[in-house]
C-alpha cells in the first residue's frame, strides 16, 4: 500500500491537495483507518483511535466532491465515531459510567471488531493472491484431436431429445441452491423491532408496569421474544421506560416512564440495516 510520503503532522491545510491524491489508495473507511493505524505503527487492538482521528478527519474533509454520497457517508460515519471517542478521552473522566460512556465503549468495540474483521479478510486476500500465483504453473495438454483421429469417431450422440435438452438448460441457468442446512422449517415469520416497540408502548401506556415474562406471554416464536427484548432495550434507550431488575437473572420489570427526549433510534437503525 502506498501512502503520502509524509504523515500529516504538519498543518493540514497545505497538505490538502496531497490528501486528495492519496485518497484513491483506499477502498473505504476501514481501509483508510487501518492504513493510518499501521502508519503510526499502532496496534489495532490498543486504544489507537484518538491518535489517528485527526488524520482520518483530514482525509475525510478532503473527500470533497470526488466521492459519491454513499462513499462519503461511509467515511463520515467512521469519522464521527472517532471524534466521539477522541472527545471522550480529552474530557476529564467521570466517575459514574453513564449511558453515554457505555455507548462510547460500545461504539469503540464495534469499530475495533469491524477493523479486526476487515484486517483478517485483507490477510486472506493477500493469501489468495499467493495461492493464485502458484496455482496455475502447469498447464495440462488438452488439444483437439488430429483430423485423422477425429474422423474415426462415430457420430456424436446427445443422449437427450429437445425437451430433455431444454430441461437440462434450465437446470444450468437456475441459481444453485447454497450448500447450507435449510432453515425454512424453523420459522417463517420476520419480526420488526419498531413493530414490537409499538405493541409494547400500547400495553405499557395502559398497564403502567409489567414483567418481561408478561410482555412476551403471547409470543409464538422465539424470534418474537428476541424482537420484543430488543424493543425493550430500544425503549429504554429512548427513555420511554425504566427497567428494574434487583439482581442478575431476577425478574425484569418494565415501567412506562416517558421522561427524556425520545430521540435516538440507533438500535432500530442497526436492525433495519441487517434486514435490508
Amino acid at each position, binding site marked *: 500500500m502506498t501512502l503520502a510520503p509524509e504523515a500529516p503532522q504538519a498543518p493540514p491545510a497545505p497538505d490538502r491537495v496531497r490528501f486528495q491524491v492519496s485518497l484513491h489508495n483506499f477502498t473505504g473507511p476501514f481501509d483508510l483507518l487501518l492504513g493510518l493505524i499501521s502508519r503510526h505503527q499502532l496496534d489495532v487492538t490498543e486504544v489507537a483511535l484518538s491518535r489517528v482521528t485527526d488524520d482520518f478527519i483530514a482525509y475525510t474533509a478532503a473527500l470533497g466532491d470526488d466521492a459519491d454520497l454513499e462513499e462519503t457517508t461511509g467515511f463520515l460515519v467512521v469519522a464521527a465515531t472517532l471524534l466521539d471517542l477522541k472527545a471522550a478521552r480529552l474530557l476529564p473522566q467521570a466517575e459514574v459510567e453513564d449511558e453515554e460512556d457505555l455507548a462510547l465503549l460500545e461504539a469503540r468495540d464495534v469499530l475495533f471488531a469491524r477493523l479486526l474483521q476487515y484486517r483478517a479478510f485483507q490477510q486472506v486476500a493477500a493469501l489468495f493472491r499467493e495461492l493464485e500465483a502458484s496455482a496455475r504453473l502447469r*498447464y495440462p*495438454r*488438452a*488439444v*483437439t*484431436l*488430429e483430423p*485423422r*483421429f*477425429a474422423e*474415426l*469417431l*462415430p*457420430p*456424436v*450422440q*446427445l*443422449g*437427450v*431429445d*429437445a*425437451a430433455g*435438452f*431444454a*430441461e*437440462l*438448460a*434450465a*437446470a*444450468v*441457468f*437456475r*441459481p444453485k441452491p447454497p450448500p447450507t442446512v435449510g432453515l425454512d422449517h424453523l420459522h417463517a415469520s420476520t419480526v420488526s423491532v419498531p413493530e414490537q416497540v409499538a405493541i409494547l408502548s400500547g400495553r405499557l401506556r395502559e398497564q403502567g408496569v409489567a414483567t418481561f415474562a408478561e410482555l412476551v406471554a403471547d409470543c409464538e416464536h422465539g424470534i418474537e421474544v428476541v424482537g420484543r427484548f430488543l424493543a425493550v432495550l430500544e425503549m429504554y434507550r429512548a427513555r420511554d421506560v425504566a427497567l428494574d431488575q434487583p439482581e442478575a437473572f431476577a425478574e425484569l420489570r418494565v415501567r412506562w416512564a416517558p421522561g427524556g427526549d425520545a430521540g435516538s433510534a440507533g438500535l432500530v437503525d442497526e436492525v433495519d440495516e441487517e434486514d435490508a
Partner: protein
Amino acid sequence: MTDPLEEVEEALVSDAELLAALEAVLLVVDTPAPTDQLADVLGQPIPRVQEALEGLAAEYTERGRGMELRATGEGWRLYSRDRFAPYVERFVLDGQRTRLTRAALETLAVVAYRQPVTRSRVAAVRGVNVDGVMRTLAARGLIIEAGTDVGGGTLYRTTEMFLERLGLDSLDDLPPIAPLLPDVDDIDE
C-alpha cells in the same frame, strides 16, 4: 517488483532452456502456431526460434520419440508419430467418446440458449473453465465460431448438426426455457 517474465527470459540464453521452453508452449498449442508468434511469446528473435524449432523436430525424429513436431502452412504443432497411429486410434475409440459428457451437454446448453456467446460468458454461467469442453464441442461439429463481440472475444453458435441431433429444423424450434425459469435474464447481469 520485477517482471517474472524478464527473469526467465534471461534464462533462455541457453539453447537447451530455449528448447524446453518451446516444448512447454508447444504442448498447449491447439491450432498450429506460427514461428513469429512463438518467438514473441518467448521474447526471442525469430531466426533463433526458427532454428530451435527445426532442431527440436529433428531431435524428436532422431531419438524416435512418440511425438513429431511438424510445420504446416499455418505453423507448428505436435502430432503423434505415424508409426504409433494404431495405438492412438485404439485409445481414441476406446473411451466413451460417442456420447457427450454431462459437462459438455451443459456447456452446449448455454451456447444454444445464449448464442452468439463468448467463451468467457459461457464460463461465467457454468462457473468452471470451459476451454477444453468448448474445443471438444467444436471438434465434434456441434458449435462453431461466429465472429467477435465488441470486446474482441470470439463468439460461438450452434451448428446445423446440433439441430439435426435434436431433430429440429431451426433454432426457433428449440423449446423455450423461460417457463421453466422465470428470471433467466437476471442471472448473469
